[in-house]
């Protein structure tokens, strides 16, 4: 377990995730059209483009500062729910690796955990409310467990992805309890949550 992650790898990961979100923008918007206000794809494209521009212009010296500022840039570009939660996630992930210029897998697990906690704190959604939390919370746990057990990063990532997919599907039959989709009441039952879907897209891009 001596894989150390450098700045360049972080930039590459952000680029892969951003490109994937851009590629799936219309699909995500379609999901939000039947569950919310139809802007999830637009929002996440704004996030993606802001991040692509950001990594272009900013070298990674201090990973914490790099991620904190990436969060700020994200929030500025897309202050909607998922945009704000993404910004929070980036900033919180950065905070736990203050001063580091390279990170280990264990750091990554800590960062993932901090991001999930940040999202939960910021959005105040509970498990079962049918939000991105239902996918990212089990994903974060699975990742940490795998890393602690000595799995490779790629293996741990795959386990996180699988957990996210399970989480996503487990809430599809449920009624949304928070956010715009909650106003739909029972009409939200049986529909895929756009936030969960977006997380799966991101994890897939990171793992592959």
């Amino acid at each position: 377990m001596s894989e150390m992650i450098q700045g360049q790898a972080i930039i590459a990961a952000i680029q892969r995730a951003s490109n994937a979100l851009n590629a799936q923008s219309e699909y995500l918007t379609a999901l939000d059209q039947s569950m919310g206000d139809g802007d999830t794809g637009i929002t996440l494209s704004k996030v993606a483009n802001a991040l692509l521009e950001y990594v272009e212009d900013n070298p990674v010296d201090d990973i914490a500062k790099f991620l904190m500022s990436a969060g700020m840039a994200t929030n500025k570009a897309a202050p909607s729910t998922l945009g704000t939660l993404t910004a929070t996630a980036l900033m919180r992930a950065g905070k736990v690796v203050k001063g580091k210029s390279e990170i280990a897998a264990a750091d990554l697990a800590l960062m993932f955990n901090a991001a999930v906690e940040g999202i939960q704190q910021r959005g105040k959604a509970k498990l079962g409310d049918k939000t991105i939390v239902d996918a990212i919370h089990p994903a974060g746990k699975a990742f940490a467990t795998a890393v602690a057990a000595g799995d490779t990063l790629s293996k741990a990532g795959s386990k996180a992805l699988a957990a996210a997919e399970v989480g996503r599907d487990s809430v599809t039959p449920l009624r949304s309890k928070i956010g715009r989709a909650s106003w739909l009441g029972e009409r939200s039952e049986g529909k895929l949550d756009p936030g969960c879907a977006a997380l799966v897209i991101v994890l897939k891009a990171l793992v592959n």
Partner: protein
Amino acid sequence: MKKIINKPADFVPEMLDGLIKAHPDQLAYQDDIHSIVRADSPVEGKVALATGGGSGHLPVFLGYVGKGMLDGCAVGDVFASPSADQMLSVTRRINGGKGVVYIYGNYGGDIMNFDMAAEMADMDDIPVRSVLVKDDVASAPPQEADRRRGVAGMVFAFKIAGAKADKGGSLDEVVEITERALANIRTMGVALSPCIVPLAGKPTFTLSDNEMEIGMGIHGEPGMKREDLQSADEITKRMTHAILEDLKSQPGDNLAVMVNSLGATPPEELYVMYRKVHRILEDKNISVHRAYVGEYATSMEMAGASLTFFRLDGELTELLDHPAHTPFFTQV
């Protein structure tokens, strides 16, 4: 409904540019045109007040930035939250050394961004407190009052907080009196026609020619029920009774009343409504200290109106009567 606009994506920044050019003595911006502040900010030694939210509700939100009311406002795109970054710019610029109170509507996106801004302000050692406005009785039953949306009643919250800060109140005092005011403020609205978000280009909802929706939100959020359009007296009676009940109002109460147009409904119709409100209150031996009839919180060109009651006590009355002067609200 047709619009006088240029490119939809430019709608908000062009509106802000026009606003600042029209009121250069009163308004300025900080860092980004979406961060509007009093031209004379920071007002040293005064608790500063900020708000924020989506565009499309003028005079809410930024129309209340001015003397005796707010110090700054973060402005989002139409019906969309501004960013924490914009709020932070406002916060830094308006802080006059006594801290900042955020007063804004109970909407998910706004809450997340204001919370984020507050955390960032904390790193700058600016004390920030938040007060959420949840006055729309139609948006949730009393036992779930915490889920209620913030609508026109926020104008009274701005007025009270602004007056208290203007009179030298401390951060705690401003928060305390604003919360006391909000505990006594209730609103209910009726929508008759939708509006068009420029970037979307189509109506936010549809209502047929003889329909109305009591309790609809200011972004077109579903109301209590759709029904046939009724007479002004009937609509007004229902809203008045619903609010009085929620407020647990008693004979002898003293209210400020706001009859607010959502946009297209003209003042003539608001006064027809006010007439009925006044009669009902008179019959119940409830007095009206001040009536505000006009456009205070809108949804662009939506037709419809809202009714807000604000139960006053001695101090709240004094603060309500305190002078204020903003581009949209002048009271002497």
